[in-house]
């Protein structure tokens, strides 16, 4: 992709701007689709229909209508809020989610930046979301938002650990942090995907990583930062209009980012499951997006089925259940590799 762009206009600024904007070209239509999908999935699971009218067939244009509505809304800022922080918070949250897309390989031909520390960079930069959430909760001048922000900070930081440890098992097997390399190493069809190697350790690591990623994206059963029935809307209670839309967009972008990482590391990324059949740069993008969307669907499925955990139970699960199991997986994989 980079060569293609350079052949058009040989200017660094142009090439890199286009490369940075391309994932946005994916995220925006994806977010529109994902919001509609969430409403449909939740509706059908709850024995009702969901959007049916806007746009004709099953209300596909519902999200577009919602975005138009949100753009027109009055931007209300509480009188005693910290104006600068209040303004910056949604942007920082979005930047934290979006920056992770730089190192995610969409296909063999496209990766934003093929740096050698790809995975490390992703984990580091997606922690910016915590900073944004803390800013949002504090600047709203609202005790309930503050609670949401504090809980979220504790939750995200705690769940970074089992998540990272679980991902380390794959890194140990692959020998590299570069996501494009990790993807290339999974050639050869379904059985070569990392989740099936050194069974069952990597499979358990996959489950741990998936559960931890639910906590990273503040989805039920770990959605106490925005627990609707306790904190109204948690850290984004005081936001309206476009800023709220930005939080929303950031949440869905984050969902896809963690699904993409799971898919890339464990399930072959843009590799086709049928060896050479249906593979190639464009097919690669198709497989990658399908796997990502599948995990997004599973996240939605879990949200509408399970109740939410209380904050101390959530901490318990992270520190006393997931982290020891993640260590056990690393130990198991390491031992297997050595023996």
């Amino acid at each position, binding site marked *: 992709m980079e060569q293609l762009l350079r052949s058009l206009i040989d200017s660094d600024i142009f090439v890199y701007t286009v490369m940075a904007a391309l994932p946005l070209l994916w995220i925006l239509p994806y977010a529109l689709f994902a919001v509609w999908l969430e409403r449909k999935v*939740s509706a059908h*699971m*709850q*024995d*009702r229909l969901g959007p049916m009218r806007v746009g004709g067939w099953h209300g596909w244009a519902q999200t577009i209508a919602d975005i138009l509505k949100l753009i027109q809304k009055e931007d209300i800022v509480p009188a005693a809020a910290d104006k600068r922080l209040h303004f910056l918070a949604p942007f920082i949250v979005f930047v934290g989610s979006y920056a992770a897309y730089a190192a995610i390989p969409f296909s063999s031909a496209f990766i934003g930046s093929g740096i050698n520390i790809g995975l490390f960079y992703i984990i580091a930069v997606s922690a910016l979301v915590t900073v944004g959430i803390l800013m949002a909760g504090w600047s709203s001048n609202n*005790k*309930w938002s503050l*609670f949401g922000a504090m809980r979220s900070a504790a939750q995200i930081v705690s769940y970074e650990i089992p998540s990272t440890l679980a991902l380390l098992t794959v890194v140990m097997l692959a020998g590299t942090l570069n996501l494009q390399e990790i993807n290339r190493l999974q050639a050869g069809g379904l059985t070569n995907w990392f989740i099936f190697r050194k069974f069952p350790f990597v499979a358990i690591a996959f489950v741990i990583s998936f559960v931890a990623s639910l906590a990273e994206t503040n989805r*039920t*059963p770990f*959605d*106490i930062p925005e*627990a*609707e*029935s*306790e904190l*109204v809307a948690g850290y984004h209670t005081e936001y309206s209009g476009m800023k709220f839309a930005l939080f929303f967009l950031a949440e869905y972008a984050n969902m896809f980012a963690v699904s993409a990482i799971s898919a890339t590391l464990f399930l072959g990324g843009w590799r086709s499951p049928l060896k050479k059949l249906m593979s190639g740069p464009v097919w690669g993008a198709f497989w990658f997006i399908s796997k990502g969307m599948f995990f997004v669907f599973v996240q939605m499925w879990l*949200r*509408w*089925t*399970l*109740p*939410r*955990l*209380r*904050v*101390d*139970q959530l901490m318990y699960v992270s520190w006393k259940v997931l982290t020891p199991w993640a260590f056990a997986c690393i130990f198991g994989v390491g031992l297997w590799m050595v023996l």
Partner: protein
Amino acid sequence: MIETQTAPIKTSTGRVLRPEEMVLNMGPQHPSTHGVLRLELVVDGEIVVDVIPHIGYLHRCFEKHAEHMTNYQQVIPYCDRMDYLASMNMDWAYALAVEKLLGLQVPDRVEYIRVIMAELQRIASHLIALGTYGLDVGAFTPFLFCFRDREGILDLFENTCGARLLYNYIWVGGLSHDLPSGFIDKARAFCRYFRPNIKELNDLLTYNEIFIKRTANVGVLPAEAAIAYGCSGPMLRGSGVDWDLRRDDPYSIYKKFQWQPQIGRGEMGTTGDCWDRYMVRVREMEQSLDIIEQALGGIPPGDVQSAVPRRIRPNAGDVYVRSESPRGEIGFYVISDGSATPYRVKARSPAFVNLSVCPEICKGYMIADVVAIVGSIDIVLGEVDR
């Protein structure tokens, strides 16, 4: 420069806060307070140190209105609106009190229909309680399943008296309408449809690991405290006390039916925790189905309006009659001075008394637990405030 507070911070009852405590207002508008209830929480981090409930946001002067009615029957729509989720039971409790004052005996057909309506209403009310309880704890889907099932009951009510929520159906001395044709078959069909849905609810929510973690050992109410605080209904039975007014202080024709009051036994945690109260409600729905099916089989023919008095003018005197509403013991203390207008109607509502226990059982738990505890008390602000 940030100003520091120099005067000590006090709660509305005058308690002075320690430096690490904070007052958090679970205000009148909150998604989980089941109406306009204000809970002033004094919290130390996430741990609740004290709870001060403030009620009265929905006070609509029921008792004052009752004293100005020209007729005892005119009070019935006000009774509906007290506990709007269990209107049949409210109407029936008031009708029982006035009928006792008059010494009136209603025909058997009226008794059977009243029992069927009250038990259907009990199921409907419990469905809302369970659905919204799941919502409080974070499970969004059981709420919609419960409401879907409740639609069946509301269809039956609408068929009979034209209303879905506030019926004005049970009058002093009889009923406002007789059963429409086909009611018995539709009611039987509903019972057949609903029984497997209780199992579906159990699979989805009741035995869910996360739900049990959220509700077991939370908000434990010991049996002696429950009795001392005057709790009744599922709150009392959830604490292990085997007490049901339909069996132990019987009214109407409940003695003719075979059913079993359900008691909490601490299956998942301690006796008297939120899970027990929740489980009592789930199991009570099944028992209500049994009563309905037995009653449907034996409705005698008759006229439902034959005993409705033209003019209600009881002798001077007073009477207190209580009955079992889905939330507990609903009692009406009616004083008559010999005229056609009631002199004093005092409604002893179960949610009012059950809510007074809230400060005791919320102390030492976390904010998320307060939501779970208040949900398990199952209050309806309409009857708390009247």
